[in-house]
């Protein structure tokens, strides 16, 4: 009875080891190089279940996914002699695992080689551009150019470079201080401009107001004088028309009126006896 169990277990173990050494799976994120005693015999880039000769053939797994290369920031001199601290990253994948195995062997080895390739390309290409072109205008084209060039070189390692990006492009500290100085000056200029624009606009509004006021008042003066002149003229005409009927009588009446108004109790008058008023006072006449 016990002997039967032992045989059963032994068979199971042997079977398990045999199956494990014969079958292997290639997962979605994997690709595999099969070697027979060191000699590459097969490259598998499709996932699924595969067979190999146990104990003679070996498999080496590589990542089939997109991998990242992230460099530490480095100083690069631009065409206009400015220093730029560039931090870039790249996306790459292993497209030829056999070549990859033969040249760099591991991902860590690949990182080191990529570092050389990408940095030297970046340095060369960025040195052909001014800082502002790198930062602002030509960034995407520049990155695509670097990608194409580095990709060509990396192909010899079984690597495809999908993307190269400048993550950061900053100025070194001493240049930063200069930029801050310039920014301050520029802001001061803008602030001054705002203030003087305010004064300009205020002066325009105020002087315009004053102008309007002056014109309005002068206009009013003109109308005022015209109206008054009209009144005067009308009155002259009305008077003249009436008085023309008997100028002599008008003279008489108006003189009397003038007497009434101008002779008051502060006046002293000398009357000759033969004046019209006193002519009845004349004794000789009475006699």
């Amino acid at each position, binding site marked *: 009875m016990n002997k039967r169990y032992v045989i059963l277990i032994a068979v199971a173990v042997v079977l398990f080891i045999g199956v494990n050494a014969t079958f292997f799976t290639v997962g979605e994120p994997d690709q595999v190089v099969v070697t027979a005693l060191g000699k590459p015999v097969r490259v598998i880039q499709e996932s699924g279940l595969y067979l190999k000769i146990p104990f003679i053939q070996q498999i080496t797994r590589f990542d089939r996914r*997109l991998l990242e290369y992230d460099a530490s920031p480095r100083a690069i001199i631009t065409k206009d002699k400015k220093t730029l601290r560039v931090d870039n990253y790249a996306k790459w994948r292993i497209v030829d695992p056999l070549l990859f195995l033969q040249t760099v062997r591991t991902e860590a080895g690949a990182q080191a080689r990529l570092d050389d390739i990408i940095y030297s390309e970046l340095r060369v290409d960025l040195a052909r551009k001014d800082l502002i072109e790198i930062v602002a205008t030509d960034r995407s084209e520049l990155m695509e150019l670097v990608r194409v060039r580095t990709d060509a070189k990396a192909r010899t390692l079984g690597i495809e470079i999908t993307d190269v990006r400048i993550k950061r492009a900053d100025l070194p500290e001493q240049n930063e201080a200069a930029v801050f100085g310039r920014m301050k000056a520029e802001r001061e200029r803008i602030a001054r401009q705002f203030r003087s624009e305010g004064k300009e606009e205020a002066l325009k509004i105020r002087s315009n107001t004053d102008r309007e006021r002056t014109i309005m008042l002068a206009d009013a003066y003109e109308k005022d004088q015209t109206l008054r002149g009209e009144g005067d003229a009308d009155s002259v005409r009305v008077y003249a028309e009436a008085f023309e009927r008997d100028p002599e009588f008008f003279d008489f009446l108006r003189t009397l009126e003038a007497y009434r108004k101008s002779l008051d109790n502060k006046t002293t008058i000398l009357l000759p006896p033969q004046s019209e008023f006193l002519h009845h006072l004349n004794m000789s006449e009475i006699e």
Partner: protein
Amino acid sequence: MDWDELKKPRRFTRGPDAPPPISLPQIKLPFKLPGIWVLIVIALIIWALSGIYLVRPDQKGVVLRFGRINRVTDPGPHYHLPAPFETVHKPKVTEVKRVEVGFRTIFQGPPARYQDRPTESLMLTGDENIVEVDVIGQYRISDPAKFLFAVKDSEGTVHNALEAAIREVIGSRGIDEALTTGKEQIEEDTRLLVQAMLDRYNSGLQMVVVKLQDVVPPNEVIASFVDVASAREDRDRLINEAEGYENSVIPETRGEVAEILNLAAAYRAEKVLIAQGDAQRFKNILEEYVKAKDVTRKRLYLETMEQILPGIEKFILPEQGGGVLPILPLGRGAAPPLLGGN
């Protein structure tokens, strides 16, 4: 009893007096069945049942057969062939994940606490200014299979893509646009750029939104920027004051003008009416005067004299020379000094 003794494996629990260990063949079953097969069958059933899996509402199930994608399943109970034939991954596809550039949330809160990352947040603008930008991105899984197997380290990929994209977008703009008017456009452009990168990486991720949290000038120059804001205020204030002046002066002047014109109109009307009145009066008098000229003339003269003379000092002159002789000192008492001496 010392400690060494206590530490010893307690082998003595199964002493010679203890009952013998239970072994299946010794149990008397009502029916005959070799125990090993029962165990194997139970193990097989358990193994087979291990293929039952549940996909929760926020997940999708990705089933791999021998490492190869076989099917994608929706939320609910499902079955896959037990390992090692099939395995399942269950990524959370509805969950919106968040990536931060320029700062990190170090405590969710409330109140939330953030930590600034100046090396990430300071960036060059297209006019060679430096601006401090904090931005977040929200993304979710759009294709679970790609998400699982296309890119290594999805989170780091999104972070790097966002960092590169925001710098590229900010770098293509002037500082004023970044600080004030262009924010929405920057967000949208950045989102599209990140999405283009993620698509290029075949990442199975969708950038839902990119949101600028903070776009501010660096600390070193912030005072100058604040001064620009206050200069703008000053400008508006000066203009407002001038407009206030205008608003008070113009109506006042209109009032003055109206006053002047009213006075002038009044003057004219008055003048004309007085003239007409005077003229009419003269005409009336003249009409009667013509009828009896001499008498009226005399009467008018004498009436006037009557009115005038009582109030004034009068001297009557002697006839023809002989100096001035007050014959009739009519009026008030004493003679004027000029004459009094004679």
